[in-house]
């Protein structure tokens, strides 16, 4: 019993920090509200799709920026997609970098774009690690027989 409440406290603290530090925003909460007994894995499923999508986009971006003649429209199109999907799951910091990235595309600023690529990759890896840690915590709580606390 003690283990469960300790894990639940950890979960609440961890989740709060993710919101406070801007890794996640309200959209993530919206996704959690869509999860119920008939769709118990909804959040993990959507986030997994986001991970797959993101990794493809990061590869596409790296390739596009390595071309002798960079097609900034193409780069912008990938960033637009990344901005959209990150915004849909509430990965706020990733979305913010994408906004800056699009400005660099508009200016056809190669150095700026390369820096943004590094930044967006960095933010993506951070949020991916944090979400995976969050899901692991959830699993631990469930396996210990507890329920996931509702965050308001």
């Amino acid at each position, binding site marked *: 019993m003690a283990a469960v409440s300790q894990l639940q406290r950890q979960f609440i603290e961890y989740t709060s920090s993710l919101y406070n530090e801007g890794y996640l925003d309200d959209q993530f909460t*919206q996704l959690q509200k869509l999860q*119920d007994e008939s769709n118990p894995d909804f959040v993990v499923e959507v986030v997994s799709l986001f991970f797959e*999508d993101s990794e493809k986009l990061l590869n596409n971006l790296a390739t596009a920026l390595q071309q002798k003649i960079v097609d900034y429209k193409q780069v912008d199109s990938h960033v*637009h997609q990344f901005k*959209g999907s990150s915004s849909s799951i509430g990965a706020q910091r990733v979305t913010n970098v994408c906004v800056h990235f699009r400005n660099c595309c508009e200016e056809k600023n190669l150095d700026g774009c390369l820096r943004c690529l590094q930044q967006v990759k960095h933010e993506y890896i951070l949020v991916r690690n944090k979400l995976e840690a969050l899901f692991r915590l959830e699993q631990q709580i469930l396996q210990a027989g507890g329920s996931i606390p509702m965050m308001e």
Partner: protein
Amino acid sequence: MDSSTKVGMKEEEERPHVLVVDDSLVDRKIMERLFTNSACKVTTAENGQKALELLGQGEDKHNNINHQGLKINLVVTDYCMPGMTGYDLLKKVKESCDIKEIPVIIVSSENVPTRIEKCLKEGAQEFILKPLKQSDVKKLRCQMQFTQPMKGRLCMGR
């Protein structure tokens, strides 16, 4: 907090059928859940071409055995899609004799007044900013209770 009501088998046929069109798999999945949660039946399409086929307006509609298409009560389409945009799809729907009465909602992550204006002018029922929330869908669901399409033009900004 509302709990989603379980829809009984006999109510299955009475649920409005929504066609969600978006090139993003993440967004298709989220929108499907949002609408299912509001007691709608959902079909998704990844582009405008597929959407038109599902609506019975595919390129070979005259040869298409299934030329009737699905009975769709609402189309919700992303604006920015490669190839046929949401705006192009909207135009095709509104130009077609068979399906022009179906309300079309345009969703977009970008708040561009000229874009909103041209979509509403072309006959979009509403323009909603992404990402969609459950409250947006609940409002749409209430509007679908009425058999007549909404005459007014609304823009839901945030």
